């Protein structure tokens, strides 16, 4: 399998704080997938996103894009990397300059990458990208950001990314500022981009429900470490790691016959203070065992499509390599569609 992007032993520390701890992950180039990265605030998910985008450098380890270490790229390779790996940020209100019309956001990348040599071609490209994300060009072009809704603004950001025909989009909480009724539509469009245009999507979120609905695989981070990873059906459908279990049971479902999870055991000052050289989740874990305090659990594979870093599964085989994606399932078959 050739990797589109590969993290090898990537860590990021800020002073004494470890935001991300030794992550190895490779995402396939040949079968573009949708991968969710989930976790609570401070879990390292945004740090991981920024490393994937090349916005920050890892403190240790390497990032390879199509086989090339991004730290060692030539300016032209870097330019190509920047074009092919596109971000979509959380807050569509903050990325726009309120004094420029929407057109500016879309024209800049076309000009910068010389995607069109005439005004007519540029216009056609932009209109095509807008239609791809379900916007009508006549309703959006010529407007100022404040004239558009949050959902429309977020779609403009997706359209801007699509314009460049990227191989990968890293979307960091793209719908957390958008109303629930619009989230579904925007996420469905990301899925369409993956299926129809073959763009790999990394979806950073704390919302396991939408991750389950659109993604193939998921990686759950806890304080910079992988707690559990694998297909969304396994990890969200039947979580094994106590932390993933806690997350899944906390989802408020509109189903009155499913009681919301029970209260978590409170973290005692003593257990929180106990320096843990072992599992980061130990102080909060309802199943904590003596060995959890001093030993970092390896990546056990309770089944073929998931790994869990938890001693509860110590009888299961340990994942043979470091690559988290080894337990990922293949994406659903693509449905190529002629361009719109």
């Amino acid at each position, binding site marked *: 399998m050739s990797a589109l992007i590969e993290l090898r032993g990537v860590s990021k520390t800020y002073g004494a704080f470890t935001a991300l701890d030794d992550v190895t992950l490779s995402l396939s180039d040949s079968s573009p997938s949708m991968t969710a990265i989930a976790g*609570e605030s401070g879990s390292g998910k945004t740090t991981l996103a920024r490393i994937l985008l090349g916005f920050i450098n890892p403190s240790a380890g390497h990032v390879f894009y199509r086989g090339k270490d991004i730290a060692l790229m030539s300016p032209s390779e870097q330019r190509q990397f920047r074009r092919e790996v596109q971000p979509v940020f959380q807050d569509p209100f903050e990325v726009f300059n309120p004094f420029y019309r929407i057109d500016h956001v879309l024209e800049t990348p076309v000009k910068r990458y010389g995607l069109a040599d005439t005004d007519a071609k540029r216009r056609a490209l932009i209109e095509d990208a807008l239609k791809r994300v379900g916007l009508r060009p006549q309703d959006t072009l010529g407007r100022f950001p404040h004239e558009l*809704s949050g959902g429309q603004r977020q779609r403009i950001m997706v359209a801007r990314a699509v314009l460049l025909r990227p191989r990968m989009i890293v979307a960091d909480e793209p719908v957390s500022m958008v109303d629930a009724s619009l*989230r579904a539509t925007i996420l469905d469009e990301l899925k369409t981009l993956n299926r129809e245009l073959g763009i790999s999507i990394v979806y950073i979120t704390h919302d396991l*429900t939408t991750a389950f609905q659109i993604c193939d695989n998921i990686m759950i981070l806890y304080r910079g470490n992988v707690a559990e990873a694998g297909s969304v059906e396994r990890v969200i459908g039947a979580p094994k790691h106590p932390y993933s279990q806690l997350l899944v049971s906390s989802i408020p479902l509109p189903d*009155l016959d499913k009681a919301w999870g029970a209260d978590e055991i409170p973290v005692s000052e003593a257990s929180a203070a106990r320096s843990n050289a072992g599992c980061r989740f130990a102080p909060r874990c309802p199943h904590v065992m003596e060995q959890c305090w001093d030993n970092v659990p390896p990546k056990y594979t309770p089944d073929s499509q998931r790994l869990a870093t938890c001693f509860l599964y110590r009888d299961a085989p340990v994942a043979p390599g470091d690559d988290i994606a080894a337990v990922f399932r293949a994406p659903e078959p693509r449905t190529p569609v002629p361009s719109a």
Partner: protein
Amino acid sequence: MTVTDTDKPILVVEGLNVHYDTGKGPAKAVNDVSFSLKAGERLGLIGESGSGKTTMATALMRLTRAPGRIAGGKVLLDGQDILKMSPRELRETRLRDIALIPQGAMSSLNPVMKLDEQMIDAIVAHKPGMSRAALDARVAELLRSVGLDPSVAKRYPHELSGGMKQRAAMAIATSLSPKVIVADEPTSALDVVVQRQVMQTLGRLQDGLGAAVVLIGHDMGLIAQFADIVGVMYAGKLVDIGPVRQMIETPRHPYTKLLVESLPGIEVKQALTGIPGLPPPLVDLPPGCSFNPRCPFAFERCRTETPLLQDVAPGQQAACHLYPEHQVLPPLPAMAQSHNGEARP
């Protein structure tokens, strides 16, 4: 849930109107809304952004600020109209009888005051003459009631996590045992685990006080898990209200049905469907039912005549012309979906 013996509602909202004056005329952010709530009941008010939810929360506290103004109606708290109180009566009523947990309550704390000072300030304003020891004891009790260690009292807000700040704001809101608690998206900035803990804490506090709660939000899952009664707001109007189970299992208003359906679950993968279109601008509501341009059932009458809330099932009312002809909501007609999602006709 605590059920009090009295059937008399503790909070009655009658024909409430809140307008924002704009260059294009008044934006009716709360448009003739009425409902009532008994002690111990939990009402979840749900709506999209711009539906008037937060305007409603501030109006219940009479905290509406210009360019907003309360353009009519009553907010009766235990029979007394908050909208007619003198400034002094109002000051005394807030916090003591009705308290607000604001949106992003974490940023409502004063960053340069220790937590206990802020809590004591609130208590002393209403109950002067308490001894320092009594106040400290009350602060400790309040902090414990929201699941915080009393040692947190000596910390500044920046030393607390988001969930802890939210709990602290809840401790302040409940410090005088109010009869009504208005919570405006109290967990919108929190992680899912912390969200559940905070909501369960709010539920326990409310049970202890026997207070009524108005929870405002846009997450149907959260509302379903917390509320007894669900009210749906659309373009400033309350368009559907009823017991939570009926609202979710047999929604009567087409908008409620679409809201429930737009929520993905974690059991089966399904096509994600949003609600096509956008809410109308509040200064330029369409004639007839405000939802008609997005409604898959809309017919001629919906485009001309504004529907009023009417009984559609026991305890459930909906503002929709499908009733009383229909008993239940007919199956949704197939819709042109998704790809022209936000395109407005």
